[in-house]
């Protein structure tokens, strides 16, 4: 087991850390008698290019052939029946079936200095193609949303495994003692729900903290129980003082009975103080009032279609600035067929694109001008892609785990670069295939973590995010 600091596993389980679903308590490190916090900032295995990750999760699966994976053959073959090894048919029947090729509804053009082909689905993002690193040869596990979404987040379709963000926080700790190390904004309750940001067998300090949920406007998103809705500030402080007075009294009473103070009970007292500090500090991070109108406009905040995701993206930047290690910005909903899941109605992709395009472009621009893109890794993508042919000869596309596109941007990845390819239809990854495990390994690598060494011992063996697979994709690294 990789043991980043000297605390024991038992210590970890009975953690004294005041994790807020993950919260560092660097201050505690200096206190005698208290073990190092598992969330204390740690030295990575390797020189790190990225200090943090912002993952823009496009739930439901964006169609690669309608966005960034340009396949002129689809126009030529549109409407013709061709034999495809469709993943769902394969899983159910063990063989493929003929299907009708369906061209993209969006026109492709070249963009930027790199001359990247991209469709007009994401016009604002297209302005940033020279900052993006496209992985066109992605493939993953599972055919349905549940398994694939879990695989994307935990590296397993069925087993209970820690989320990527939990692994990262476990490996690196956090940079801000008053904030969670791993935050997920408006996560879906569907398709695995909390398991997608859960710590599984890792100590609970590494679990993701959810802020907001789908269906609630991002402007109302908050951390649960952070504020007392029935008491004012003074009363809150008084209440805390009363609990702490009793706690201190009870520790002295123990001492009188021959029971020495210990770290476990001290940790309870500290957890109250920390909770109080968080109440003071955290709400400001999520409050966008201090942002200029120009910045709000940049993210599309205030405009109907883009307000919600725009706020989430801006919150992500503010969390990144404040030292949060792993921030997931969900574009999702609570249904079993989430957001981008256009089985029957491809034009709906356009509505979703409108909602995220400006906010994401704004985030990229904002990170860049603040110098944050240099040590922040931005990851955009869904749990899988979509088929280049019509689902059941209708007007939508079914899931495609065998070939899809994600992009990375920022710390340590080549800008204006494309890697990997699908076949001429845009269906199966064929060249420089990148499995989701490989992407996980690469994300960890960029953060300075060796995916082979980032292990945790549970139920008698060492576990990894990448199971026994995963290769770092070196050709995309700067």
């Amino acid at each position, binding site marked *: 087991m990789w043991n980043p600091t000297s605390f024991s596993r038992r210590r970890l389980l009975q953690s004294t850390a005041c994790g807020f679903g993950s919260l560092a308590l660097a201050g505690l490190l200096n206190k005698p008698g208290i073990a190092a916090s598992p969330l204390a900032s740690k030295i990575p295995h390797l020189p790190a290019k990225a200090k943090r990750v912002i993952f823009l999760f496009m739930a439901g699966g964006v169609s690669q052939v309608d966005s960034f994976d340009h396949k002129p053959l689809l126009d030529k073959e549109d409407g013709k029946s061709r034999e495809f090894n469709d993943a769902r048919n394969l899983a159910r029947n063990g063989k493929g079936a003929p299907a009708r090729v369906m061209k993209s509804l969006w026109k492709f053009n070249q963009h930027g200095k790199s001359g990247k082909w991209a469709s007009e689905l994401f016009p604002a993002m297209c302005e940033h193609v020279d900052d993006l690193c496209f992985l066109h040869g992605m493939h993953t596990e599972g055919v*349905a949303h549940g398994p694939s979404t879990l695989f994307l987040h935990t590296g397993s379709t069925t087993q209970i495994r820690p989320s990527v963000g939990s692994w990262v926080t476990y490996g690196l700790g956090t940079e801000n003692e008053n904030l969670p190390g791993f935050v997920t904004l408006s996560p879906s309750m569907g398709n695995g729900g909390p398991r997608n940001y859960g710590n599984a067998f890792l100590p609970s300090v590494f679990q993701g903290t959810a802020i907001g949920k789908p269906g609630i406007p991002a402007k109302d998103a908050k951390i649960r129980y952070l504020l007392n809705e029935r008491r004012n500030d003074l009363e809150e402080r008084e209440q805390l003082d009363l609990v702490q007075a009793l706690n201190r009294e009870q520790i002295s009473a123990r001492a009188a009975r021959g029971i020495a103070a210990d770290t476990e009970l001290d940790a309870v007292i500290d957890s*109250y103080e920390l909770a109080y500090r968080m109440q003071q500090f955290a709400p400001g991070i999520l409050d966008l009032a201090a942002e200029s109108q120009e910045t709000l406009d940049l993210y599309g905040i205030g405009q109907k279609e883009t307000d919600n995701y725009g706020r989430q993206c801006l919150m992500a930047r503010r969390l990144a600035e404040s030292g949060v290690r792993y921030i997931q910005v969900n574009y999702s909903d609570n249904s079993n067929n989430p957001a981008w899941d256009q089985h029957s109605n491809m034009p709906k992709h356009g509505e979703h694109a409108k909602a995220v395009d400006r906010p994401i472009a704004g985030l990229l621009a904002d990170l860049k001008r603040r110098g944050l893109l240099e040590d922040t890794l931005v990851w955009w993508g869904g749990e899988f892609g979509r088929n280049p042919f019509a689902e059941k*000869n209708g007007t939508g596309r079914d899931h495609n785990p065998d070939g899809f596109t994600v992009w990375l941007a920022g710390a340590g990845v080549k800008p204006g670069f494309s890697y990997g390819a699908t076949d001429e239809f845009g269906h199966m990854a064929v060249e420089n295939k990148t499995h989701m495990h490989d992407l996980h390994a690469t994300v960890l690598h960029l953060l300075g973590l060796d995916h082979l060494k980032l292990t945790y011992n549970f139920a008698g063996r060492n576990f990894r995010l990448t199971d026994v697979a995963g290769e770092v994709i070196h050709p995309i690294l700067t």
Partner: protein
Amino acid sequence: MLKLRALCSFQRSIPHTCAGVLAYCVIGLCVSPSYATSPAADAKSDAHGIEFFEAKIRPVLAEKCYSCHSADAKALRGGLLLDTKQGVLIGGDSGPSIEPGKPDESLLIQALKFEGFEMPPSGKLSAQVIKDFEHWVKIGAPDPRTATTAIAKKGIDLEAGRKFWSFTPIGRPEPPKVADKRWASSDIDRFILAKLEAKKLKPVADADRSTWLRRVTFDLIGLPPSPAEIDAFLADKSPNAYAAVVDRLLASPQFGERWGRHWLDVARFAESSGGGRSMVFKEAWRYRDYVIDSFNADKPFKQLIAEQLAGDLLTHETPEVEREHLVATSYLLLGANNYEEQDKRVLEMDVADEQIDAVGKGLLGMTISCARCHDHKFDPIPTADYYALAGIFRSTHMLIHENVSKWTERPLPMSPETEAAVAKHEAAVAELQGKLTAAKKLAKKLTPAGILKSGPIAASELPGIVIDDTQAKRVGDWSTSRHVKQYVGEGYLTDDDLGKGEKTLTFQPEFKKAGLYDVRLSYVSLGNRAESVPVSLLTADGEIDVKVNMREEPPIDGRFLSLGKYRFDPSNQWFVMISNEGTAGFVTVDCVQFVPVDEVAAPVKTDVADADAPKAGQAVDNTVSDEAAKAAAAVVKLEREMKSLTATAPDVPKTMAVDDAETIEDCKICIRGNVHNRGAAVPRGVLQVATVGKAPQMPPDGSGRRELASWIADAENPLTSRVYVNRVWYYLFGAGLVRTVDNFGTTGESPSHPELLDYLARQFTDNGWSTKKLIRQIVLSRTYRLSTADNKQAAATDPENRLLWRMNRRRLDAEALRDAMLAVSGKLDLRAGGPGVNDPSVLKGVGTVTPTEYTYEFLDTRRSVYTPAFRNRTLELFEAFDFADPNTVAGKRNVSTVAPQALYLLNSPFVMDQAAAAGARLLAEEPAASDEARVERAFREALGRKPTDGEKSAVLAALARDSKSIDQNSEASSSDGRQVAWERVFQALFGCLDFRYLE
């Protein structure tokens, strides 16, 4: 050949493989050892062939394959070595990589062609290179690389394995001699004291009586002792006082709620399936009640094992016993499974795997699942043992396959009253059905075209959402017909029996309201129609495929066929798509109607339907005679009666339960866990290493679950009783004698007191596997009575207190914390049993897409064991305070101390509400008392003791301040101010150390 997906570790649903430990290879299970006589020998001398190998083959192998398939590979994949001739011929887990001379039968060639395996995974090699390989195999695969493969076949040595402590037979250790003759009060104490004396340590002093009482009360029933119980115990000076308390607690119905919950942790009990699409287990509460009742009745644990694994196969003396037996088998079905897995063979093995894991860890303390893909890396469990067990579970019927599959359910035997009610109801239905059939017949006779007015009707005349064919999205050529005058709107569409597979019609309704809809397809039947027309629906219940026989007349009014009732909502673009793929005969489509289910019984808006309540002057279609109208009205009336009759059907109880499968068969090994790469079948059986004496015989006509249960629930099974008594010890001391309670394998910890463990295991099985006797024995020991006091010398020698020189301090777990707050507030609802998920919106999915845990509101104040235990949604208090992860066997709870717990105790409405109720109760019950007296009472209620002087003055000061400031700042009367002040006092008590920890 089935198409496989790349490398073994990329195959779907491999549960896991062991990180970073693939240094050696498990030689394949279907490997032929006869490579030495292969035709390759003849080719060896062929210099030309060698030259070809050196020029065309070796460089490719070295460049593209060696990184994963050579002795130097960082991690060897699939057990396949390609860096020696021997390796190529032996092959890996999937068998020999080539058949010299036969490229078409060679796995390597298939893999290069991306047929089956896809190698190399980074991308297909050029056609020329693949041709070169084919040629090479064809000429006999000449290969000069003579080195022998440098890996040894690693088998499992079962005899050596049996020497590990947990597999050795359970002994009958005598209690040891101890120097201090006075301290020990039982044999348990002598085992403990002997170890302490060996280290020159002494146990600390006993806990005071009130501390012990609080400890034992929480431990046995999960609630705090009441002030009256405290007084009674402190006043009872008889030598029997301790035993009397223990016997009272053991007899309390709350005992089963506490200890049943412990077992539910181990049984990974949950009320939803988890996985991607989490589905509510509506009947799981029956199992929860079964467990609670069993612990209250002190059912022998041996019997509990048998019932849970094989209740359905046992003899049921009475219907009550049969009920219990069937409900018990829910245990096998409660796991977290991904029922939407599309590859159903994978799902079947996943479910079996989950069961092996639950039984393995829960009952045997073994991580058997590790052996799914390879021999266990650490414990003596070969892959064959895993598949021997898998055969038992695969011979059990537990899955119903659909797009999203389901677990099995079985009806429960009914009480005589219910049975009579059901029979009566069935008879009434049959009678009414008879009348209905006759009425329909008559109506049809009178109006041959059906009871609707014949001829075209407008879509607007029909209820619900009607999408006519003119609004459908068409793919391919469809022509409009009006040939048969029985359609909605302007006509209907036909594929003209041409262009099969090229045509579809997609109907896309817009829903304004979420709900359940009856989806009806209107088509025009005739003898030349297609018999099997594929119709696909996208509904909120999932994707549904049905086949429609268009030769048969649509049963509803001669126009419509119901495709079933499904949920829809405004969130998505749902559809019904009719295709002519694979059909023979004409496909006709008229319209699709979505009738909200509460309107289904309402008649369609036609003259005939209105005849139910005829009014003067009503327009009557002249084509229908009066008699016909009457007959049709009778049908409508009877259909209504039928609907209300079926709606009042008595509830036929059912349970999650299993049955033996129709086909009993041994399971074939899945090579590297891949269900599509099967090796030899393994006879059903049990873990060899833990078998003392003869292995159980598996019946040819039964799954073998009963035999498995007997093998586990055997006093001589070296694991079962040890694992169980150790769990009980853990719940009472906060640490097991073996601290890794779910892992008795080589990667687990060894016991601190192996003799005591065996002693307890023997006592347990000798005492008829009685949990209550075991607990009684332990909690009446002197060891359990120790205080948590410090001792410098002992702490230096044994800092982790493994030798139990003192009691461990323990934190209240989530349920005890919640229940204690409710007990103090007076809001605890002690109603036992029954469905916990009682919110109709969750059960029926009203207002949401599907029945789901996501909208559930946790409102009740019953004991925590009755709080619905969903997998994807947990009560927030449970989440904050380390509730058991229901996704896996959780013999041990995590203990974390994190800021969200403080936030929860400071700010959650639940805690504040309980504190307010406790305060109000105190003021109501002690109206005349002084604040000082009230403080004493509050402490006794919450902490089971009087306040210290310091505590008292802190609380009194806060009371004075709060009452004053609240009165000043608001118009509230002083009694309101006092109430708020007391709310804060109780909230502080709920948050303080002595409430949250047991000394």
